[in-house]
């Protein structure tokens, strides 16, 4: 039986009709057509589906949609400024060459954003710990870690 729920998505109140068996990831991609968030493994292992819910990074593939009710969800689409300007993390990923195939990128950036929001000057270990649940199979992480350092103001510019 479908139900109507309301939640804040990228700073905008959204009303959606959902099936209780759907995950947040399914609703984001298939109902709201926000395909920036990717489905990798679907079992909470790879982090490609990472979004931020009430300030914390979460695997949206394991998140029952009805739990999103009344909460604030941020996806990669919510990072760009209204002017169209990229978020400092997105800019840093481009500049540092931290994107190759791009499949992990949205999840990486959302994990990094959750980290930087709670800790402005993360150490390299903080960064590694926070992206441990985000698998990248092409670049090998060095550029990704550099990009996060740069965006956090702690690394090369």
């Amino acid at each position, binding site marked *: 039986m479908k139900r109507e729920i309301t939640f804040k998505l990228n700073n905008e109140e959204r009303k959606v009709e959902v099936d209780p068996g759907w995950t947040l990831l399914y609703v984001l991609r298939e109902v709201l057509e926000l395909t920036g968030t990717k489905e990798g493994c679907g079992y*909470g292992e790879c982090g490609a589906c990472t979004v931020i819910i009430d300030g*914390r990074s*979460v695997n949206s593939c394991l998140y*029952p949609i009805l*739990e999103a009710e009344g909460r604030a969800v941020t996806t990669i689409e919510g990072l760009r400024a209204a002017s169209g300007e990229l978020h400092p993390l997105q800019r840093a990923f481009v500049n540092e060459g931290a994107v190759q195939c791009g499949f992990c990128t949205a999840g990486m950036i959302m994990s990094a954003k959750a980290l930087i929001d709670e800790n402005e000057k993360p150490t390299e270990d903080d960064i590694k*710990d926070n992206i*441990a*649940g985000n698998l990248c199979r092409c670049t090998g992480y060095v550029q990704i870690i550099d990009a996060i350092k740069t965006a956090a103001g702690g690394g090369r510019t």
Partner: protein
Amino acid sequence: MTRFEYHKPHTIKEAIGLMESLENAKFIAGGTDVMVLIKRKKIAPAHLISLRNINDFSSIDIGDGLQIGGGVTHSDIVANEFIQKRYSALTDAAGKVGSRQIRNVATVSGNICNAAPSADTACPLLVLDADVKIAGPKGERQIPLDDFFLGAGRVDLGPGEVVTGFHLPPFGLNTGSAYIKHTRRQAMDLPMVGIAVRVTIRIGGSEIGCKDAFCTIDSISNILRRLEDEELRCEDVRIAMGVVAPRPVRTRKAEAALRGKVISEALFEEIAEIAAAEAQPRDSIRGEAWYRREMVKVLTKRAILISVDRVLRPDDMI
């Protein structure tokens, strides 16, 4: 996705009532195990009863020891400085479970209720003498965690019962604890062996520990040697092992051999041998039995040393 109805009760009473009235229902907390089981078609519940919206379920309260609510996540534990200082083994374990995304939603109760032999928070809670708080159709009860585990994946929960949290007794400044998770890779892995230790050291009239500059840089082994004349005695000890039996287990022979003795690194080595002899590991994809037993020996000694270190040099923990 499989179809199920989703219920969001606001009180434990309501949750238990739903569980009693609904057919084929399952409780769900963080969902990092339940959702995976559903997706893999291992289970097909018709109803999920969420524990995420229960009022006052995610609180950590200090006073008469420590009260951990049923909805407390691994990240909540990691962020709590009091737990880090006084119940360090639990922080060690909670910070090593899954990824940040998993720790942000996965609850300690869920980790315990799954009763995997490898459950990371189980060994620390065992050595910290945790009681499990349970609510059900017949009322509330509280039992030692050691009695809660019945076997691999099996716990002492009756129909309609749910874990509402944990109670841990208070420990003084002369108690230190540690958990070591031995894995093949640093992140996103289950332990091959997990060892938790809690040591309480009997402190005489004068303050023990070292105050000179060497202390901050010296190894705990050297410090123990220097403190030999003080005859520091082990007042009480708990040692628990994960993945060496169908359920997380305490090694009572090793504990008994250490209790009341004057501590020294040589003694810790003997204790570690006893623990290894008590372990009953199996061969599996994560490691062979002989290797696991060997690592029980290495890690038991190491975990005791870290626990003692945390008593003698408490500042290093912060």
